[in-house]
């Protein structure tokens, strides 16, 4: 074929196309510079910075209580887990003893957040491959979690429920009942998700064997979360470095070995079940006790460096604080999962079609404010 083109007068050349910053598939303001030969992608170059708000710099100005609410705005789909990460770092630095009740509630809310995030991802995944209806089904179930969050935390997306030392206020009296209702409801919906999208032949053909990431590449590119686990890289922070109440629940780390788009999809679907089982184990025995330990009004971390990692819906979020003993950190650094996962894109999407790029990007589950911060 290529020789035919080479021998004729017909000139074939690669061209350049600008996907984003306003493009439906980039889920925000990510700009991809694509070099394309017909439909086949030769090169992908992500261009970042369209939603950079210098959150890390703002942290150097704020007190530790104030930093927490900024992390809501990074990976807004796992806002609670981000908050928890900062709080855990501060609490570890202060060597505060956190009540069991707080640990359990944080874990439950974190897992609810993970389910909400995966629901949204599932809906958008379907939409990216062209099945628009999944979006609404995913949002319907996410809405139930949002209502639970709203009742307890007061906000649906940027909760800011955690404070260094515990929770801003205790859970709402309806919380346990609502969560149980949701778990029962959602258990009937996951099989429906599978019947609608997972089993669909078109969807499987679209995703199987697309965007393959080997285990070696996953490790060397710093992939984490479902993206790493789909390549067989056991990287679940909840399992390897348990925080909050993850050391007292039993759950399996969802691993796949294929490393393609469908494997990443399967890992996330399996995580829905695992999150449900974690919630079920904890919801009936939330220990009684204080929801908060008192801290100083002005928190000053002892001089030193502190690091804490947690597993957000997207992967490993690391919070790194250098303190020189005053009320704000000297330097604050977030190791966001989206940034490392995005760096894979040019590696795994080259050679595929435009449609493959979109499907691959959907399973990387990018949240652009998380990447740019």
């Amino acid at each position, binding site marked *: 074929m290529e020789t035919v083109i080479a021998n004729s007068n017909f000139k074939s050349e690669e061209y350049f196309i600008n996907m984003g910053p306003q493009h439906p598939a980039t889920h925000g303001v990510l700009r991809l510079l694509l070099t394309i030969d017909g439909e086949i992608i030769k090169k992908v170059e992500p261009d970042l910075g369209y939603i950079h708000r210098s959150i890390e710099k703002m942290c150097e100005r*704020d*007190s530790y*209580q*104030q930093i*927490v*609410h*900024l992390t*809501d705005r990074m990976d807004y789909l796992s806002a609670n887990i981000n908050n928890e990460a900062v709080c855990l770092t501060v609490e570890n630095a202060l060597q505060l003893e956190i009540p069991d009740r707080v640990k359990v509630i944080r874990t439950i809310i974190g897992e609810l957040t993970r389910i909400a995030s995966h629901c949204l991802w599932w809906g958008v995944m379907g939409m990216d491959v062209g099945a628009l*209806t999944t979006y*609404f089904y995913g*949002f*319907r179930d996410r*809405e139930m979690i949002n*209502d639970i969050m*709203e*009742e*307890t*935390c*007061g*906000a649906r997306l*940027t909760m*800011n429920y955690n*404070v260094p030392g515990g929770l*801003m*206020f205790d859970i*709402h009296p309806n919380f346990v009942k609502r969560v149980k209702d949701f778990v029962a409801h959602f258990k009937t919906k996951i099989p*429906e998700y599978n*019947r*609608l*999208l997972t*089993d*669909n*032949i*078109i969807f499987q053909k679209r995703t199987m064997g697309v965007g393959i990431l080997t285990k070696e590449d996953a490790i060397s590119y710093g992939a984490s979360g479902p993206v790493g686990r789909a390549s067989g890289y056991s990287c679940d922070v909840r399992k390897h470095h348990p925080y909050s109440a993850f050391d007292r629940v039993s759950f399996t780390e969802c691993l796949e070995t294929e490393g393609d788009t469908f494997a990443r999809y399967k890992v996330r679907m399996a995580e829905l079940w695992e999150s449900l089982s974690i919630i079920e184990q904890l919801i009936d025995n939330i220990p009684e006790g204080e929801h908060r330990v008192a801290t100083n*009004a002005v928190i000053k971390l002892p001089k030193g460096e502190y690091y804490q990692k947690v597993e957000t819906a997207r992967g490993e979020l690391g919070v790194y604080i250098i303190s020189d003993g005053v009320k704000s950190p000297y330097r604050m650094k977030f190791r966001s999962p989206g940034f490392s996962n995005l760096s894979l894109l040019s590696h795994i999407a080259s050679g595929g079609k435009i449609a493959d790029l979109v499907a691959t990007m959907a399973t990387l589950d990018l949240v652009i404010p998380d990447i740019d911060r």
Partner: protein
Amino acid sequence: MSYFSDIYHGIKTLLTGMSVTGGYFLRSRKGTITQQYPDNRATLKMFDRFRGEVIMPHDEQNEHACTGCQKCELACPNGSIEIIWDRGIDEDTGKKKKKIDQFVYHLSLCTMCGLCIDVCPTDAIEWGQNFENSVYDRTKLTRVLNEPGSKVRAGIED
């Protein structure tokens, strides 16, 4: 032979998917999840803890609980709260005492983090459930929370 089993399998999965959406189509009357918002205003009730805007409740004597301690102003990450205070003579004791002149709240800057309400020692401010905050003129988003002529409730500082 796998050629035909592929076709059979493919058609089966497609029909399964169609049965899911078809089921929702048939149950569409009951299953609607959207709300017809401006129409359901009368029945729409937000949760108790919903963070709509910061308000300062006043009682019948037009008294509030704000002592002007400025903890909220310090806690706010965005400078949404400005307290303009003054020193007045307390009628009972005759001593000079700090009191608020204007509690200025910039809703346009507020991120609804709730830190001000969390730190308030006298529960002078709390969350209001109003969420219809859009206005044509953005200066209207800057509000003075204490009513004109209001004063601190007696005994709140003890």
